[in-house]
């Protein structure tokens, strides 16, 4: 299990299989809520997650691939592309400076 304090999150990476569909859509959504807090949001293929990612968001089916690609980085899985509670959890951790763990 990995954890990070929301105030230490500077880069969130939304990962999906190809990095051309859902992760692009989610990146635009997350960026709207996180960029006011100084957090950069990028998207990537799950096999090409950048090393400086502080937190990774990906579909629950890809969590184990993301963890093995970036061991030690917090990986939060979600089920639904729109309105999954995972997105609110990440937003809250960043906004309130709370610890978030995977």
């Amino acid at each position, binding site marked *: 299990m990995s954890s990070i304090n929301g105030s230490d999150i500077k880069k969130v990476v939304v990962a*999906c*299989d*190809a*990095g*051309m*569909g*859902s992760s*692009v*859509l*989610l*990146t*635009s*959504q997350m960026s709207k809520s996180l960029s006011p807090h100084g957090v950069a949001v990028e998207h990537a*293929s799950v*096999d*090409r997650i950048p090393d400086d990612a502080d937190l990774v968001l990906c*579909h629950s*089916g*890809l969590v184990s691939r993301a963890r093995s690609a970036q061991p030690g980085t917090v990986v939060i899985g979600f089920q*639904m*592309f*729109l*309105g999954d509670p995972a997105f609110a959890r990440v937003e809250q951790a960043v906004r309130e400076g709370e610890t978030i763990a995977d």
Partner: protein
Amino acid sequence: MPTDLRIGPEAVWLGRTARDKAEAVDLCGRLLLRLDAVQAAYLPTMHERERSVPTYIGEGVAIPHGTDAARALVKRTALAFVQFPDGVDWDGHRAVVAIGIAAHGDEHTGVLAALARVLSDPAKAERLRQAEDAATVVELLSPVGTEPAS
């Protein structure tokens, strides 16, 4: 960020029918082919991707696309909007709209941002699902977060 792609009327097919998800994905792929956005070998990778993580995103909309490895088969970034008024079973969800994606860059970010905004507004989402002309789709999916056109 390069977000200059827009959906034009040539990328909108309304009132189509598909017996199942595979047929719906194929129609999206055929429209991408017609737009000269992909090579034919891209289509099987769209099905491959559906088998790993399905692309239904909610509000009656799915966004089928190929795999990361299939990027080489993309000639240009494009989106293909196909509407199925009778609905298609998408792994237990009812999809009325499928938007095929072929991308090698981030040029389509603005359109997907517009899509996310439309789907978070139930009235707009309904307009998109029920669109009776391409102009409605083009208008609803005008890219957001982009520089004004010069």
